């Protein structure tokens, strides 16, 4: 499995020499930046109001702090934006190669299937990190003007990293299914949205099917991270998804049909 590096390097170069990665990162940073600005604006106004307000006692109950008022909603919104953008990042990973038949060339190398998959996954993950890490500017900026809770913030970002990794794995699988990039992106997008909506399955579908579907929803497992809680169950959930879809991709790659 250590041989993934050449694939990783090649894929990374491919990302950086084409506009797609930059466009996705810039779009995300624009969205994220604006979200940060407007959410912090509200928090700023609340702070001012609190100082001069007679309602200090009742406002005490609102937990006016950075974690609850800024980063919990902000990171929650991030995960939606990430959910939308990840399929765009992964759609070309296998589809393009299949279409241009370069995949044949890839198979002739002394590389195992798992190396190929891992390499591509790590490349997209690196782009994801390149997208996420600049947003750390926001808490750093905020830290000059208020007290920050770095521990819970890091847990929140960990949640994003894990969920993003899961989305990437799902995206890679759908990329491997078809040689049409658009189809891959749309399918991936559809599935991700569907799982998002499962959150409310409990209310709509009765008995245990509803319960299971709600458990499978991404929203059910992302909340704890944004609250500053490191919950083993939620970590396991995302790792499971990530591993399962990578494995699925691996099985797909190995099957004769795919190679035929």
């Amino acid at each position, binding site marked *: 499995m250590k041989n993934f590096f050449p694939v990783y390097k090649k894929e990374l170069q491919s990302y*950086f*020499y084409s*506009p797609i*990665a*930059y*466009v996705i*990162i*810039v779009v995300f*940073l*624009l969205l*994220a*930046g*604006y979200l*940060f*600005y407007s959410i912090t*604006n509200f928090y*700023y106004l609340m*702070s001012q109001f*609190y*100082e001069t307000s007679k309602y200090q006692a009742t406002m*005490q*109950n*609102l*937990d*006016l*702090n*950075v*974690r*609850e008022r800024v980063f919990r909603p902000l990171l929650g919104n991030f995960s939606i934006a990430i959910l939308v953008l990840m399929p765009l990042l992964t759609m070309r990973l296998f589809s393009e190669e299949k279409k241009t038949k370069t995949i044949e060339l890839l198979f002739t190398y002394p590389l195992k299937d798992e190396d190929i998959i891992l390499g591509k996954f790590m490349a997209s993950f690196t782009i994801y990190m390149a997208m996420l890490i*600049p947003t750390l*500017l*926001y808490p750093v*900026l905020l830290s000059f*003007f*208020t007290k920050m*809770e770095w*521990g*819970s913030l*890091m847990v929140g970002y960990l949640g994003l990293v894990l969920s993003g990794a899961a989305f990437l794995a799902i995206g890679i699988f759908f990329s491997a299914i078809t040689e049409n990039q658009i189809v891959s992106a749309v399918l991936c997008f559809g599935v991700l949205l569907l799982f998002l909506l499962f959150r409310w399955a409990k209310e709509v579908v009765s008995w*245990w099917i509803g319960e*299971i579907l709600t458990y499978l929803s991404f929203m059910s497992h992302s909340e*704890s991270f944004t*609250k*500053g*809680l*490191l*919950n*083993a*169950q939620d970590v*396991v959930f995302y790792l*499971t998804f990530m591993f*399962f879809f990578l*494995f*699925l991709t691996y*099985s*797909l790659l*190995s*099957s*004769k*049909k795919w190679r035929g």
Partner: protein
Amino acid sequence: MKYKDSSVIAIIGVVLLFLGSFLYILLPQNKIYSIIILLFGLAAIVFYTYSHWKEINILFTYHAAARGVNFFLTVLIVLGILTFINAISARHPMQIDFTKSKKFSLSDQTQKILKNLNKEVNLTCFFKTVQPNRKEVEDLLKQYALYSYRFKYKFVDPDRKPEIAQKYKIQNYGTIVIESEGNEQRMSVIDEENLTNALLKILRNLKKSIYFVKGHGEKEITDTDKKGYVGIKEAIEQENYTVKDMNLMSEKQIPEDCAVLIIPGPDKDYFDRELKMLDQYIDNNGKIMVLIDPEVKTPELRNFLKKYGVKLSEDIVIDMVSGLFGNNPFVPVASEYPVHEITKNFKVATFYPLARSVEPADTIPPEVSINIMVQTIPKTWAETDLESLKIMPPIFQRGRDKEGPVPVAVSVNINQEVDKSINKKELKSKLIVFGDSDFISNASLNFAGNKDIFLNTIYWLVEEGELISIRPKEKEIQLMFITERLWKLFFWLPVVFLPLVVLSAGTFVIYNRRRKK
């Protein structure tokens, strides 16, 4: 042929793994069944893997040998194992709280209670969909549910589902109804302490009963008139106690399930036999509350109380200052309470329509310790010239009348000697005496602190020691301090500068690349 047959084993194994995992989550009370199924599933898969190791090996090294059905199978197996792992982690919660005030962690006491929960508890929370504290309550309930699958909750918007709100007779937004095995508790102030205590109350195994004595002209719990006790009966029932009445003459002894016996304002005296029953009840760790009005002729009962160190004087407490009930001088008010367990944090005033003084006797028996619980405001007095009250308004006569504050309620701890040599005593029973029975009648119950002081007294008698106090989490307030000028940074840096940097970097790299070509 042979191959296909044995692949059935693998399929069965996977199905069993799935089944076992789901059962593990959904029917945790029968853990043993799901574990057995899981083990069978695991065994089937292991057997299959072992007997077809060669083929599986080929699958992993020579891709061309893979068959379609194997792809499906291995995927299913992996899915089964992953589901199994998730099931385990769902049932064994592990969590680290990184918040500074540990806001989302539950106290050890709560965790212990939840882990040992052996009954189903269902919470129905009547909140508007956009109510300010709904999220906070949901966060709290989620934490509770983490530690026990038997703790279930659901939110109902009373505006959207009025029929359900009707069924539960909900009057305010933000009410939670807790149900467990037919018992019910309601809450409106929702924090960890209240919720855990409500849980404790609702889980009480033996439903304790409060008995009201009848047969001597006492107040009746079925009486809906002004002087009746229907109101207080319902108030006690809301605290998850059963309320019954009993006639002492028709019983041999006080019933087993009697947690507190209340003597609610008799106007005829008690028989010797009945008083002996009370003595016996006290010896058996029973708790009694006596509400005795002025001017009743009950010498036997009075002597009974004297035996336990309580002195009842033939007087009426006069309050010319408070002016309750249309300047009625016979309704004294109490607003500040002596240091006492029951009235520790009690800040509300209480009033007693037609009361007599109740105080420690001049000689107190050795096994008794007595404390004054309620006394009227200083500008009152206990009028001893009852005859004069019939013809003229009350006048304070120094020397004859007792100057205020006048004690109108006492609590008595009755001990028994456990070890004579070291003078060790143990609490045997508790007794409360109020010099009035009308303060909790239907007409007066819902005013001032009357109901609350009565219920607090009940708790003290029943020894609700199981109820716990949990220190609330500190509220975290972190404000943002910034000048108007510097605030602009918050727009320019994240929204403009950062994306621009990436954009330029990208343009630069791609342009360079194109140029090289």
